[in-house]
């Protein structure tokens, strides 16, 4: 048997043998965690609006972001966030909390290599690809949207 066929057979066998994450369970956990974070945001929004009823929604939104990001960074520093994320998966990663955690965890990890070449150059090690993809996809969506709006 040649190597290529042997490897193909082995990879298929391993695929079959490896335990799969229960997708229903993962989805449910992500739903719970994502919902909890959104409810928290809504709660802060309601509190802020009860104190400052005249504040416009955009400003309230900015405050919510600041609060969620700060809470995430504090929890990351305390070593709690990675445990929540292990449970919640995409539920914790997709809201702005995931973005804040990816930057804060890199900053903590690479602090020892110094401010410039440690934190400075490696802070976006995980978040960088997310940003690049985000920008690239929005560009594509923007072009498509523009073309559709011509007709």
């Amino acid at each position, binding site marked *: 048997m040649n190597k290529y066929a042997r490897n193909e057979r082995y*990879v298929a066998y391993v695929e079959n043998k*490896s335990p*799969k994450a229960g997708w229903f369970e993962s989805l449910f956990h992500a739903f719970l965690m994502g919902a909890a974070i959104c409810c928290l945001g809504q709660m802060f929004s309601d509190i802020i609006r009860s104190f400052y009823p005249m504040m416009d929604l955009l400003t309230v939104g900015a405050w919510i972001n600041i609060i969620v990001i700060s809470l995430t960074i504090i929890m990351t520093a305390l070593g709690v*966030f990675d445990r929540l*994320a*292990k449970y919640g*998966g995409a539920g914790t990663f997709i809201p702005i909390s995931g973005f804040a955690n990816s930057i804060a965890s*890199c900053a*903590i990890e690479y602090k020892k290599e110094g401010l410039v070449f440690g934190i400075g150059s490696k802070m976006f090690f995980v978040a960088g690809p997310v940003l690049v993809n985000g920008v690239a996809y929005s560009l594509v969506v923007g072009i498509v949207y523009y073309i559709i709006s011509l007709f």
Partner: protein
Amino acid sequence: MIKLGKQTYQLEKDISVVTGLSLVGQKEGDGPLKRYFDFVEKDDKMGEKTFEKGERHMFVKAISSAIKKSGFSNEQIDLYVGGDLMNQLVSSNYTAEELEIPFLGLYNACATMTESLIIGSTFLETGGLNNVICATGSHFSTAERQYRYPLEFGNQRQSYAQWTVTGVGASVLSSVKKSKVKIRKFTVGKVTDFGICDIANMGAAMAPAAMETLNAFFKDTNTTQKDYDLIATGDLGKLGSDIFKDLMQEKGYDLETNYIDCGHMIYNIDQDTLQGGSGAGCSAVVLNSYILNKLNTGEFKNVLLISTGALMSTTVNQQGDSIPCIAHLVLLEVE
């Protein structure tokens, strides 16, 4: 030294494993083997500022204590062989600088322990020197940074992933000082790659290498699994050792009651390490605690240790290359 078959060698001199010493982190110390370890360190930074310095400190402590335990002084040790998982073997290099023992740095990832024993005993066989120390180790926090993500980054591990063992194992080998446990034979493994590309699934990547080496040993020595009290693989984990058993069965060897995997046995199921332990320290600490203990008490008469190493680099892996793996085998016997 006599060559048996294609890859196996028989040592003609009496090479004794004088002492084994194991130093582990708290997580390993909470596992099922806790009573066999010499040191369990509560602080995995060992009071240092960084995990890298902590790992180095673990090496120095383990090796110095092993030499002391064997009754030798540093000057009587002719050679230090070993390695770790860090790029450029930093932990071992700095340790060797501190210990001032002539040093050969080795890298075969998690198979470095048996590789060290092979190199060490071969040197002793030549007769030019008397005592060698073999030491390898790994550290969860330094390995995570080098191979994966920052520690506090919130992500989910794949259900088939493993957990890098924090610990250092050191064995003192001697051709002059006698002890019960001897190294008799060894098999030098071939690099084996069955096309696994997922760096989280190291057990599956390494299982074929272990199979090739053990199969070669059985063929070269004309023995089977029934001739040994214990067959231990290094760090295949639960999934990897199940695959390994399947692969061995295909070759006609039925591994059941006398087979263990060091990675699978080092943690309890509830310690959240998924498929179990991995890392250069894994087979090193299990050999220098549990296995040597059982050999010295006479519970086992002969043991095959097959350390398995995934020789991956994150750079070429991201370029789409699969993971080359290796496994070296050492036969330990009681007189």
